[in-house]
């Protein structure tokens, strides 16, 4: 008699996989850590997403001093319309956080975002985009800055990769 495994692993049987959405929409929040990444994110935000939202870290968007973490966790984000938002509640209402950093730019605001992620048990994925003219040293500097905070650190040489990754994550 044919074994059950042999019978169920045919293309024919694959058709009977139950058809329904097996997950709910997830709130992915994408945060640009510096002006060049903010530009990329502005472009990304114009595409259609499955609930992903896009922000800039306020450390460069306002007069807050870059990386000045003792400025507290309040109002640390700007949405793309420029409204200041409370970082902690944005993180709390997310499913996971993606930060984007252009190589060689100041990425220090990640530490505050990471603190909020830790407090709310959210995963932080960090993408470094080398961009044109970025040196190896720039990439290394960004990586060593982001490394302590990210569960997954990705160097995305190709700007399309952010779109590919967010799509893959159903963002």
């Amino acid at each position, binding site marked *: 008699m044919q074994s059950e495994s042999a019978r169920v*692993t045919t293309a024919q049987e694959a058709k009977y996989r139950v058809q329904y959405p097996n997950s709910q929409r997830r709130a992915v929040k994408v945060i640009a850590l510096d002006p060049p990444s903010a530009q990329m994110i502005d472009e990304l935000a114009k595409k259609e997403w499955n609930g992903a939202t896009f922000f800039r870290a306020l450390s460069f968007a306002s007069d807050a001093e870059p990386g000045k973490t003792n400025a507290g966790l309040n109002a640390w984000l700007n949405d793309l319309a420029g409204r200041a938002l409370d970082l902690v509640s944005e993180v709390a209402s997310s499913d996971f956080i993606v930060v984007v950093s252009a190589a060689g730019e100041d990425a220090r605001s990640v530490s505050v975002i990471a603190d909020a992620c830790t407090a709310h048990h959210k995963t932080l994925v960090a993408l470094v985009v080398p961009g044109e003219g970025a040196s190896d040293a720039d990439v290394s500097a960004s990586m060593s800055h982001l490394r302590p905070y990210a569960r997954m650190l*990705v160097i995305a040489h190709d700007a399309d990769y952010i779109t590919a990754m967010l799509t893959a994550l159903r963002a």
Partner: protein
Amino acid sequence: MPLTLRKRAGERRKGRMFMLRKEQNDYLTQTDPGTPMGDLFRCYWMPALLSEELPEADCPPVRLKLLGERLVAFRDSEGKLGLIDEFCAHRGVSLWFGRNEECGLRCPYHGWKFDVTGQCVDVPSEPAESGYAKKVKLKSYPLIEKGGVLWTYMGPPEKQPPEPEYEFCTVPLNQTFMTKRLQESNWLQAMEGGIDSSHVSFLHRGDLSTDPLFKGAAGNKYNMQDLSPVFEVTESDGGLLIGARRNAEDDQYYWRITPWVMPCYTGVPPRGDHPMHGHFWVPIDDHSCWAWSYDYHPTRALTDHEVDSMKAGKGIHVRYVPGTYRPLANKDNDYLMDREAQKAGRTFSGVEGIGMQDASLQESMGPICDRTKENLVGTDNGIIMARHRLMRSAKALAEKGVIPPGVDPEHHKVRQAALLLPRDVQYKDGAKEALKAKKGVRQTSV
């Protein structure tokens, strides 16, 4: 009117809901002639057969299917290797029944004879002087022998790249050991297992301490202590480097670095002084592939004990149905599922052996995994990036003829590594030398 609008929006959203769209899944998984991924695979030298399958001049021919093409391989009277269309040009008989004699394969039906290039050299019904035979030629591909493996290149002859330089096939033969097993699933879900580092702490957790080809390495304790590693993915010239980082003592990290070379080579980070191993995942057709498993040591001969263990199906190798390359544990016997062992924790899935633990689960996905139903997480970025690079490279090849990564033999000279690094050192800097294949230099491993 509002109804139409709403419907459109809904459709668009539905498209977005899917992780990988069906067209993309088809694009990545189909490798028959004329498909974009099929063209991509046809840029590379690929393992076709083990040397042992054609052991001597005039030995029996072997049938094989690669990238959806049915072929027959033989070694002629002078030892020359041939890989040609399986079917006789006369009336379509399989040349597997052929007589391998006097520098050619003779069809047993009406006696037509073909040489290693597929050229017909004899049509007995026609006078030799007529030149009839010269006008008949079967399709053929080059077949070369290197490191105990017979490699073929199935692309356009004018684009044939230099020979492969993977380290396992360049060391002396007593330092290297290769096996292959049939996997009854599409190549991509098999290959993705090779870069999916996060499954090791679950599926294979029982084997680290018991398998003769893994146990005893100093680094194993870090795997056991820290079940949720942190990952870093970077592009390399030929593909990707996927680093998994765990905490170690003294402000150090324990790094395990997996190289992927396009399109289908993966290396498993080493353990102690055990031989280093890894895989090729070569499409047979869209529903099956060959999982090739190499083990080699860069600087010393493999010991008898190691070779015996490999032959006994330990490490990443498997035991076979006698006389075949089909694993002994296979879908026909439910992979010899042992629920007792699963319950007792001797194996995590109930299936024994690392190779079959992977294969059984990957085959259970069905002949072609439906990636539209996946829910990937951040730590799956290695897989996401590999798919992205494959798709981009196939597109660049199709549209602009760009030679894809991994064709240049320099890209093959990468090594897997396992090492301790200070926490502030990047693996791409700290492990730079460790990741290069260097003749006469031992692997970097803890």
